[in-house]
C-alpha cells in the first residue's frame, strides 16, 4: 500500500496513542474522570479501516478508545471537554467520552448499552440509501458485543434490505475480564456471516494494509448496493479494560506488547525510508504540541453550566 497513506495512518495512530496516554495521566492525577477505555494496540487497525472510507461516510463506534474521532479530525480539545464536562464538549456533558459526536465529520456517536450500534447503524443505512446514496455506515464493535441479540436482528435486517453497512468487529479476545472462549461459542465472529448470506472476512487487525484492503472491498460492495460485510479484525488489547484495571485476570498481559502494531509500523516506515529519525522526532514533537494545545484549551475552558443537565432532551 502507498506509503504516504501508511505514514498518515502512523501519524494518526501515534497522535491517538500519545493523546490517550495523556488522558490516562490526567485521569490518574484526578484532573479527568477515568472513563476512557484505552484503544492502545487497536488504533492502527481502526485508523487503517477508516482511511479506506470516504470522509463523508458515517461511523458508529464502540467504547474502545478515541482513534475513531481522531481519524476524523474531531478536535482533541472537544474530546477532552467531553471528559471534563466543559464548554466545547461535543455532547455537552451528557455522554462524556462514551458519546463523542461530530455529525459534520461523520461521527454519529455510541450506544452506552453495547450493541445498540447494531440497530442504530442499520437505521442510518436505511436513511442514506434513500437520502444520501453512495454513502456508507460503518459500526465498530467488540467481540463480546457480538453476543447481543441486536447483532442478529441487525445483520438480518441489513442483508435483507441490502443496506450500505459495514460491520467491523474488533476481536481482542476479551470482554473486560472474560476471555472470548468463555463467552462465545465460535472462535471466529466472522463465521456468523453465514447466517445472513453476507461475506464474513477475517483480517489481521495489526496489519494496516490488510485492513485497508478488506475495508475497500466491503465499501465497494456496500456502495454498489450489494449489502453489508462482516469484517473481523483480530487485535490485541494492550492495556486494561479501563483506566486502572490491573488485569489480574489476564495471565498473558505481559505478552501483549509483543503484538503491538505501532512500533512495527514505525519500523516498517523507517526501514523503507519513508520516515527517518528526524522526521520521526518532528512528528513526535508535532503530536505533543497538538496535545499540549488541546489540554491548555480545555484547562482554560469554563465548566458547563449545571443547568445544561436539563437541556437537549427534546428538540424544540
Amino acid at each position: 500500500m502507498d506509503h504516504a497513506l501508511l505514514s498518515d495512518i502512523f501519524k494518526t495512530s501515534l497522535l491517538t496513542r500519545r493523546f490517550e496516554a495523556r488522558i490516562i495521566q490526567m485521569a490518574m492525577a484526578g484532573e479527568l474522570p477515568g472513563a476512557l477505555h484505552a484503544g492502545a494496540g487497536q488504533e492502527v487497525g481502526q485508523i487503517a479501516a477508516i482511511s479506506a472510507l470516504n470522509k463523508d461516510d458515517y461511523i458508529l463506534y464502540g467504547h474502545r478508545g478515541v482513534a475513531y474521532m481522531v481519524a476524523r479530525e474531531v478536535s482533541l480539545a472537544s474530546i477532552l471537554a467531553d471528559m471534563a464536562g466543559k464548554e466545547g464538549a461535543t455532547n455537552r456533558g451528557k455522554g462524556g467520552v462514551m458519546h463523542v459526536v461530530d455529525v459534520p465529520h461523520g461521527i454519529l456517536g455510541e450506544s452506552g448499552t453495547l450493541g445498540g450500534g447494531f440497530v442504530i447503524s442499520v437505521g442510518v443505512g436505511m436513511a442514506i440509501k434513500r437520502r444520501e446514496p453512495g454513502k456508507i455506515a460503518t459500526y465498530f464493535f467488540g467481540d463480546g458485543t457480538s453476543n447481543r441479540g441486536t447483532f442478529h436482528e441487525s445483520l438480518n435486517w441489513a442483508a435483507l434490505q441490502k443496506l450500505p453497512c459495514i460491520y467491523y468487529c474488533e476481536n481482542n479476545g476479551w470482554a473486560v475480564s472474560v476471555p472470548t472462549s468463555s463467552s462465545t461459542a465460535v472462535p471466529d465472529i466472522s463465521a456468523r456471516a453465514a447466517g445472513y448470506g453476507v461475506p464474513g472476512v477475517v483480517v489481521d487487525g495489526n496489519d494496516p494494509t490488510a485492513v485497508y484492503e478488506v475495508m475497500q472491498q466491503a465499501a465497494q460492495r456496500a456502495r454498489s448496493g450489494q449489502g453489508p460485510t462482516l469484517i473481523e479484525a483480530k487485535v490485541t488489547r494492550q492495556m486494561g479494560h479501563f483506566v486502572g484495571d490491573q488485569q489480574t485476570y489476564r495471565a498473558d498481559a505481559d505478552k501483549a506488547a509483543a503484538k503491538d502494531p505501532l512500533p512495527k509500523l514505525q519500523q516498517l516506515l523507517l526501514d523503507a525510508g519513508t520516515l527517518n529519525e528526524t522526521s520521526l522526532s518532528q512528528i513526535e514533537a508535532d503530536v505533543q504540541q497538538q496535545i499540549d494545545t488541546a489540554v491548555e484549551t480545555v484547562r482554560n475552558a469554563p465548566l458547563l453550566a449545571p443547568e445544561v443537565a436539563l437541556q437537549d432532551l427534546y428538540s424544540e
Partner: protein
Amino acid sequence: MATLTYSKAINQALAEEMTRDENVILYGQDVAAWGGIFKVTEGLHEQFGPERVFDSPISENVMVGAGVGAATMGLRPVVELQFADFILTAGDEVFFKAGMWRFMHGGAFKVPLVIRAPSGGSGFGPEHSACPEAFVMHAPGLLCVVPSTPEDAKGLLKEAIRLDNPVVYFEHKLLYAMRGAVPDTEYTTPFGKAVVRREGDAVTIVAWQDMLRRTLKAAEQLSQEGIEVEIVDPRTLNPFDRDTIIESVQKTGACMVVEEAYRTLGVGAEIGAMLMEHALPYLDKPFKRLAIPDVPLPTSQHLVDHIVPSVDAIYKAVKDLVS
C-alpha cells in the same frame, strides 16, 4: 365532516403525511400487502410502494432501533409494533435509543420517530393486551399519545409524525371500529391540551380511550339520577395537561381516575400525587383509582371482564364517592 372509524382515521393520517413528506416511511409485521393484522394500513403499500411501506421480520429490537437511526439521519419512520406490550420487548431501543439518543449526544440529533402501539383489548393474553402507558410516561424523552376518538386519532397522529421528537402512539384495539366525525379539511391536534368531554360538578373523572367510552356510558346513567360528573380526556400523557384537571377539580372538589393500566404506579398515581401537590385545598373527598388490580390480563374474556373497570363498576364507584 365525514364519519370515519378510528382505524380509518389513522389510515388517512398516514396517507396524508406520506403524501406531504416523502421522508415518512412505514414498516412493521404484515403492514404491507396485508394491511396490518388490524387492517389499519390497508392500501398504503399499493399507494406508496415497497420502498416506503414494507413488512418487517419478527425483530422488534431492530424495528425500533433502526427507526431511531433512520430518524437521526432525516427519515421520519412510523413503526408499527403488532402489540403495544412489545415496547418492553424492544425496551432498550424504546427507552434508551429513542428516548435518550438525542440527550446523550448533547442535542446533536433530532429523532422524528413514531411508534404505533395497539394497546388494550383482550382475549390476546398477558403479553398482548396491556395498556403500558405508565412505562412510557415515566421514561424521559418519549412523548406519549392516547387518542380516544377518530378525530383525535387522526389529528394527533399527523402532529406526531411532524414533530421532531419520538412519540409512542397508543391506538386502542377496542376503538378501531369506533365511528366518529372527522373534519374534511386539513388539521392537526396539538399535544398537551386535555379536553373536557362532559361537564359536571359532582366529581372530576380522568379517563381516555376505552375507559373514557365506558365512563361516558356510566355518566349517562348517573345523570338520570341527577349526578353530573365532569370527564377530562388528557389526550396526551407526555406532555401532560395538569391545568385542565386542576381547574376541573377546583370546581368539583373530587377526582377519580379510570384507567386500563395496572393500578400501582398507573397514570392515576401521577394524577393523584400531582393534585396533592397543587390542589390539596380544593379536595374534599378522597382520591379514587379504578384500574387493573395489579395482575396481568388473562386470556379468558370473563376473567378479563372481572378485572377491567366496567361501566357498572364506574357507576358504583361514583355513587360511593358522592354519597
